[in-house]
């Protein structure tokens, strides 16, 4: 079936089954491999993208449900003010180890800061608990979010 997707402000037409998750459309059809597969069942957050500004798990979001909405992926998050700040804080705090989870972490953190520019530790806990980091970079993720937020102050 044909679907019109708006990805990173660009309209893309894809011809795929309607139940196909956006994760695989991004990775395998459009070649946007920054969004990662970790679990396929909304347990790990590696596939987090923004749908109309909300963080969602692309592994469970079907292409039929996503059509007509704005999708933002890690490849374009630097074009948002908050996203660029988060990326910079991630580098400044040297958050990243293997990096496989970090697309999802950055997308989740960006969504948090867009909605809550000065998050408390409790806000961070709630917004980030869905994103697993197997390398255990949590201590630095928390610091980097606070750092990105302080740029707003």
């Amino acid at each position, binding site marked *: 079936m044909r679907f019109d997707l708006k990805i990173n402000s660009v309209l893309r037409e894809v011809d795929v089954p309607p139940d*196909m998750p956006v994760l*695989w459309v991004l*990775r395998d059809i459009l070649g946007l491999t920054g969004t990662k597969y970790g679990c396929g069942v909304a347990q790990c957050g*590696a596939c987090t993208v923004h749908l109309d500004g909300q963080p969602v798990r692309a592994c469970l979001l079907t292409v039929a449900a996503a059509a007509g909405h704005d999708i933002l992926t890690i490849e374009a998050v630097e074009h948002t003010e908050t996203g660029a700040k988060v990326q910079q804080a991630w580098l400044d705090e040297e958050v*990243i180890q293997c990096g496989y989870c970090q697309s999802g972490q950055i997308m989740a953190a960006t969504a948090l800061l867009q909605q809550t520019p000065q998050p408390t530790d409790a806000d961070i806990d709630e917004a980030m608990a869905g994103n697993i980091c197997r390398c*255990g970079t949590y201590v630095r993720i928390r610091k980097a979010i606070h750092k990105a937020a302080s740029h707003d102050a």
Partner: protein
Amino acid sequence: MTRKNLSTSRRALLGAALSGGGGFLLSAFLPGLPLLKASHAQDTATGVVFRPNAFIRITPQGSVTLIMRYAEMGQGIYTGISMLLAEELGVTLDQVSVEAAPADPAYVDSVAGEEETGGSSSTRDSWIPLREAGAAARMMLVSAAAQIWGVPENACQARDGRVFHSASGRSLSYGELAGAATHQPVPAKVSLKPASDFTLIGTSPRRLDTKAKTNGSAKFGIDAQIPGMKIGCIIACPVKGGHLSGYNRAAALAVPGVVDVVTLPDAIAVIGEHMWAAIKGMEAAFPQWEYGPNATTSTADILAQMKKASEQSGVVAVKNGNAQEALKQAHTRIDAVYELPFLAHAPLEPINTTLHIRPDGADVWVGTQVPGRARQEVADATGLRPESIAVHNHLIGGGFGRRLDSNSIGQAARFAKQVPYPVKLIWTREEDITQDQFRPYYYDRISAGLTQDGAISGWHHRTTGSSVTARWYPEGMQNGLDPDAVEGAAQTPYAMPDQLVEFVRDEPDAVTTLWWRGVGPTHNVFVVESMIDELAHQSGQDPLALRKKLAAHQPRALKVLNEVEKESGWGKALPAGHGMGIALHYSFQTWAATVLEVAVEKNGQIRLVQAHTAVDCGPIVFPDGIVAQIQGGLIFGLTMALYNEITLKDGRVEQTNFHNYRMMRLNEAPDIQVHLVSDPDAEIGGIGEVGTVAAAPALANALFAATGKRLRSIPFAKQLGGEKA
């Protein structure tokens, strides 16, 4: 992990690296994969490229490429290794690009004896040879400049990618010197900078691999995109030793986008235009299995067999004095059994391999800790000559030991050789967990005693379990002893005049076992450090004070203990329900002590409050990298100690995804402070696994301090009744 103590001296390594010297034309570039460019230098080259050894390449256009023999899996090794090379080569990190090495004997790790990233050995094994490789290249560039100018070499200085002649104010860039440098003789002797002259080593520059990981451009193995490539998913028989007995081929091929169904005796792959077609096709194929001899095996069966095996004495690893007699005389005596479960690795990037197998050769795109083994696996699976197989190593989305085995690459090759096109074969998360090769289950019997004045009086530790060494590296066995199985038990930080340590090998038929972060020490340090704690409490002594007393002959142990004592505020009054636990260990040539504070709620819920680790790993290359590895390593180990175990029922692994193989999450992670108290004159130590080793004993000891309950088997959370799903 047991290492091959190959006598590859650092001179020999340097010689081998240098023997490829001289100029290489552009066409001689190896098919390495340019992964990360730290600079904007042009990587296209014309003319003669200076390639003084296997690790450095300088083009006349001035691009400096450092070739990485180790896999980057998050440990920051690309940065640490580049620092060693760049320090002596005389370039800054923003002047270099890094590239993964191809599978080639030039990149053998001399501690491991093969091309391998593991055992926390990368920095240790590179500390001298790679600095020498950088220095040799610098000397050739300086000689070239001196010759051009007709001045003595010692009148020239090299730094920031240029050679300077300060007397005349002239300078030439390394690019300008590349052609001339290829004609310089390889220096017979290189001298290294004294530590006081280091400008890079010991600093914390920005990591080279991280920028690309913030914007989706970093390429992991699973991100390989090859023209004409199809994508497949694999399911192997869920019970080890079984085979495929049937599947619905027509139904699978009827799923839109499915291209092929291919099988092996014990596995099936459905290949499609994209992963979703492959997944739906696999559902339709509905594979049937003949489960074979392990069809009814459960964890209880494996454990019963292991318990029985543990009643017999084993191969002796250490025998000092007379442990049995000393135990009889002991003033305080404890006899205990400790148990450690099977564990999956669960790296966040699931297992995957992309291959293009042709009649005359093959390309393999994969993230592996062992590129040489990977190439051999593909050769064995296809009958191709190893030299005709190119392994393009990628960034790794978590290794933890899993990618030290290459069985999944061999399996993928046996599928891929059945199709003419390039194919990316992915294990789903469910496959990644259930078909993992697991950290062995260990069943440890231990008896230990103290004399009246608090010295150890008899120590008898018998560990029973599978031997990873025997399967993975049989040459490493020592007359039936697996040195890994007793690492951290045979040598402890403590004075033990009467010590007996034995290993009983007991192989479970239904699972395959493999290395797991921290290897032997993650297992044995849990047992030893828990037991020391038990002895302290039973004899009414402070656990930290007892450790100092028993390790009084180890000045570096005392230093890390004193440091965590001070930093953690050991002994201060804590709120009700809180407790502090300590663990001390010497692993991978590094000393470390960790104090962990926990709080246990009335309902048994465990909260990790704060951790402090003091580390002495000898000379420090990349301090922030050490801190990051200790933080991440501790969280990796604490996750395991709280939650993880792989169990079997009817021969199948019961855990399938992150809902039932639970990971620690951000809201549960404690703050972790790392204190570096290194001795710069000591032997350099490893770091990637050190944090993990301390986690379980520090947690067990803290939980005892908080609750009075001694937990002798992992995982802990469910035993206190506080596990949240």
